[in-house]
């Protein structure tokens, strides 16, 4: 789960008052950087990760020994070109890759478990803001992220309106829908129904609620893909067998694929973190923070927005992304929007979707030229 070695960590001394009312201080934020900060310190991009992401955006993730979650988009000469930009990404608080979370110990040296305070998207970005001070960056060139990363993007620019020149929320929403909450609740119920969960007080890797977490991941994974994408990739193809076995093994390739996705996820993710982070997503409703008027969230910023959605994304569909565009247009903000054609569902932002990657690159590079 947590490879303590080689994790870059910032200890935030300053107390942070959380939305739940509790205050945390002297807490760790684990981060990673790519590329180098120029002398003017005007080339930094803060990337926010999604539900199950971490700070290892690109290259080999030392915890999983696999490619980072946004390797298609971030790296030398890629859309977010690390030859040009200084990319910072940190693990969200509540997470399990080194930042302060439920697998950490409380002051009495007891593992928090569900005694960890419930955190929000707002708390996550307030915690990450400390990275700007750490690197001496007055203003970021850009903030970006997809899915829950996009929610953090929206919250960050609302909280710190003059701290980024450009803002790129991708495949996201300003408010978690009933359907979004429903899927997250399904995942949480799967975890808490696992007898190993023990109200969050599991300790060793052997006795963790891995089965429940795997089911949560399997259900969520379906929401990241499109029906068409699934049909094309798997159809009704059978898994290493000639015919149906009339039993409950994985007869179909899609079953085997989901089981695999569930099992590898358990190796790298903490069940309690899954509960905390999905809760933060469900609580996210940016308009509600401004008495129901989303435009108010952005009224103090001059940043240039670029919003991207995907045709086959039914988790955070185009209309929810467009609602953000509408809120920005209604206050005359500088906002561009494109819906990318893709069969790859919500996961499109993580995959090799050339139109998406070229739009992202062109927007960033042209905006940087105008700097």
């Amino acid at each position, binding site marked *: 789960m947590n490879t303590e070695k080689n994790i870059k960590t910032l200890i935030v001394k300053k107390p942070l008052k959380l939305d739940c009312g509790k205050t945390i201080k002297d807490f760790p934020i684990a981060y990673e950087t790519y590329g180098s900060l120029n002398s003017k310190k005007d080339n930094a991009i803060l990337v926010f990760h999604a539900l199950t992401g971490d700070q290892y955006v690109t290259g080999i993730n030392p915890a999983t020994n696999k490619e980072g979650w946004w390797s298609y988009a971030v790296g030398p000469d890629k859309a977010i070109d690390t030859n040009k930009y200084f990319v910072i990404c940190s693990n969200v608080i509540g997470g399990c890759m080194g930042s302060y979370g439920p697998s950490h110990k409380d002051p009495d040296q007891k593992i928090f478990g569900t005694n960890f305070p419930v955190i929000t998207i707002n708390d996550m970005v307030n915690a990450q803001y400390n990275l700007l001070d750490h690197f001496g960056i007055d203003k970021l060139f850009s903030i970006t992220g997809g899915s829950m990363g996009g929610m953090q993007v929206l919250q960050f620019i609302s909280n710190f309106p003059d701290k980024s020149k450009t803002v790129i929320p991708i495949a996201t929403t300003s408010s978690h829908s009933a359907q979004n909450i429903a899927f997250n609740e399904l995942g949480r119920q799967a975890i808490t129904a696992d007898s190993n969960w023990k109200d969050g007080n599991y300790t060793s890797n052997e006795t963790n609620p891995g089965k429940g977490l795997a089911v949560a991941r399997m259900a969520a994974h379906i929401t990241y893909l499109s029906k068409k994408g699934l049909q094309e990739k798997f159809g009704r193809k059978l898994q290493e067998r000639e015919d149906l076995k009339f039993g409950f093994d994985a007869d179909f390739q899609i079953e085997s694929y989901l089981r695999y996705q569930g099992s590898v996820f358990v190796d790298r993710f903490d069940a309690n973190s899954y509960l905390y982070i999905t809760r933060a997503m469900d609580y996210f409703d940016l308009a509600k923070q401004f008495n129901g008027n989303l435009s108010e969230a952005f009224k103090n910023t001059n940043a*240039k927005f*670029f919003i991207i959605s995907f045709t086959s994304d039914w988790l955070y569909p185009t209309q929810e992304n467009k609602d953000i*565009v*509408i809120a920005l*247009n*209604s*206050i*005359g903000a*500088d*906002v*561009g*929007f*494109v*819906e*990318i*054609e893709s069969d790859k569902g919500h996961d499109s932002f993580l995959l090799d979707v050339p*139109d998406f990657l*070229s*739009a992202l690159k*062109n*927007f960033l590079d*042209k*905006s940087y*030229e*105008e700097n």
Partner: protein
Amino acid sequence: MKNEFQVIADLIEKDKKVLDVGCADGTLMKFLKDNKNINIRGLEISKERVQECIAKGLTVIEGNAEKDLKQFPDKSFDYVILSQTLQAFLNPELVLDELLRVGKKAIVTIPNFGYWKVRFHLLFKGTMPITKTLPDEWYNTPNLHMCTIKDFFHFVKSKDIKIFKSLALNNLNKSTINESNLGVKNLFADLGIFLIEK
């Protein structure tokens, strides 16, 4: 850049805020941004064209003028441009109303169906006219509501829309349209350019 765009650009003062509706590949937007320091936005329905605009560093929103203009507040732009697109909408009257709500002024250009070559084509060939400004066949044209300069002139008058400038364009020749020369301009111009306000 085509002559039409030069004429449109000449109608707009420096440093203004402008929305180009149906901005296509952003050629006019780029010119206005680079040469007149215009704070320019585009609305474009084609994904490919939107990508071209982004590659030019332009702020563009993918969308449909008939549905997506309503998100802009009243008079939020100094000028709204609609170049040779009015005839392609299901409801041109509604779009025109929206242009004049969103923009303090609107610049609308229309391919003139009263142009003599169009009339000759129909009269002598007996088939639907194909010209430089109307290049498509009847079965694949996006144009649903063709009109002449005269039609448009009367239409805006009937809606109590103020015409600041109306220009007739024929290749490189630009001339002013008024009540008295309307019949002639309607015959010899292939494009009408109108600066209007409500």
